[in-house]
């Protein structure tokens, strides 16, 4: 959307400081492109074992549909799994509205916790229902 001439999704990864990785997301996060982001994130995690902060720079994010949100949630799982914190920088208003509507912003930005180490957040799956 932002850069129709650049094609659907472009990702640029940098590591400005030890333990910190920035991924700049340019373009749309949707059904056909989310896989690219997830691969980029897993690569970043694999190449930076002591990662503490993963920043997604979303200033040039175009459209983000439900698959895009699903990918952000998956990214949060990845970072939570390695004890890193996810930052969603320069969020466009449309993304903020989506995160607000779906009640996911707090979860995405939450500090990694012990529960995150269990992928899928299933720690409570066996609890007695309240």
């Amino acid at each position, binding site marked *: 959307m932002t850069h129709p001439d650049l094609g659907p999704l472009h990702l640029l990864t940098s590591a400005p400081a030890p333990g910190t990785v920035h991924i700049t997301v340019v373009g749309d996060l949707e*059904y056909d492109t989310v896989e690219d982001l997830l691969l980029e994130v897993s690569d970043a995690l694999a190449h930076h074992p002591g990662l503490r902060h993963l920043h997604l720079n979303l200033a040039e994010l175009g459209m983000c549909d*439900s*698959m895009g*949100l*699903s*990918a952000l*949630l*998956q990214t949060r*799982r990845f970072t939570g799994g390695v004890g890193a914190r996810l930052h969603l920088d320069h969020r466009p208003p449309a993304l903020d509205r989506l995160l607000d*509507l*779906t*009640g*996911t912003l707090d*979860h995405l930005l939450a500090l990694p916790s012990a*529960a995150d180490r*269990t*992928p*899928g*957040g*299933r*720690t*409570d*799956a066996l609890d007695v*229902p*309240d």
Partner: protein
Amino acid sequence: MNVAANRSHPGDIAPGAGVDAAASAAPYPMLVIDAEGRVTRHNAAASAVLPDLRSGTAAAGAVPPWLAEPVDGAEVRGRIGERLFAAHPTALEDGSTAWWLVDDTEYRLAVDELAVERERAQFLIEASNALLSTLNPERCMEVAARLAAKHLADAAVVVAPAIGRRLPMTLCARGGPVERRAIAVDPERVPGLEEALRGFPPVPSRWIDPGSAPEWLMPKGFGGVGSVAITPLPGHGVPAGALVLLRTSNHAGFSESEEEFAALFAARVGAAMSAARLYAEQASITDVLMRELLPPRLRQIEGVELASGYRPAGDSARVGGDFYDIHLTEGAGTATRALVALGDVCGKGLEAAVITGKIRNTLHALLPMADDHHRMLSMLNRALVTSDHTRFATLVLASIARIGPHVCLQLTSAGHPAPLIVRRDGGVEEAQTSGSLVGVLPEVQSATAHTTLAPGETCLLFTDGIPEAKGGPMGDELFGVARLKRALGECAGMPAEAVVERVQMLAAQWVGEGKHDDMALIAITAPRGTHLTAVDGTTAGRYTA
């Protein structure tokens, strides 16, 4: 001149001076025919090709007719026995013509072969195009049979792998109609057919006794099979069937090169057929799932009007992500009479369909707690969260209870656009509910809205396919919630069915020819009571509860 000397030795031009000696030893056949049509000279090479040549006698009879005709200096071509020659004439001073014969059989064969190959390559391209233009397996078999009957044989039969005991086949005689059969026969009765259906390499056609071709393997009215060739149709991993080519006894049998060519054609048919079959299987899986996931028909519940609309995304036959359901909750010991759930699963296709099914089943099982939306959503969330993926669903729950002429609603959004309420005066409100999506987060949050619909008022639940429908005058503008609200304001007092139709129509017009996501919506309308008189349906006072 050595003509006289040659009478006794017709095979030779006697060695002599210059030109004659060269002509005599030339590797190319040479003969001279004079103005009266008599052979006056010829060399040894000419005798080897035309053994009846006698110098001094008439050429007619000894040379082929195409050579005997004098032509104005142009070369002529023709056949001598099995071979092809070009004859180059040279006019001599005495009015006779010297003919030099050049055997160009090999060249002509190569040229002919090239033409055949070109034609075949062209045919294969056309065949591929025709075959790949359809994803319907039966249509694909028809195209294959028709093409094969036209280009490869007098009749062709495409046999698909057996379904149960029946062997589906498509038959076509050249220029005739395409026939379809599915008959219980044993392919082992036809030598080579069973093997081809199992994907073994083809048996050379000369090994197949044409008399063994049974009646069921021939198009109607096709008599006298002279030769049969059977080629397997290779599919993706599994054989896709067999191609049977038939020729009548009037025609020559299949040459080796024709059989090789048939195999090339068969490879294309096989690929197309197995693609078509895979697609058909997929489509039928989708059909089964769609039937299972199809929303129920909505109706009135104790006078509460319910109407629904669903417009799947037009871009594919994949199962969409939108769903809705309505459950009667009578007998659960609560005031709630019905629970409506409408939602959207992220993504498309089978994965989305599986999640949709899970949500609908889980909600059904949780009906006894239909009054407590937060508890329902928490338990639904737990049932959905998995470490395998972060696919989620957003949905809205609406519990409906009728109290006198009013309808009491409990509305809870789980990450979903809030329902809109159309008051009788045309005011449109957003239900004050919000909550988190289900299926990913460890815990869900939700805030439930309570509202009451007076007679004639409507609550509209919808998926984001409607506000996010792209279109409008410039083609790239979102329909948007504001526009939806305005449209609903004009629907004040309308029956549920009419509201749904109106919104659907506006959204469809907005999108025009463009692509859109699934669009689902449900209108819940409070009953306006019984029509007392048939005078003026718009006067509020004319209705009773």
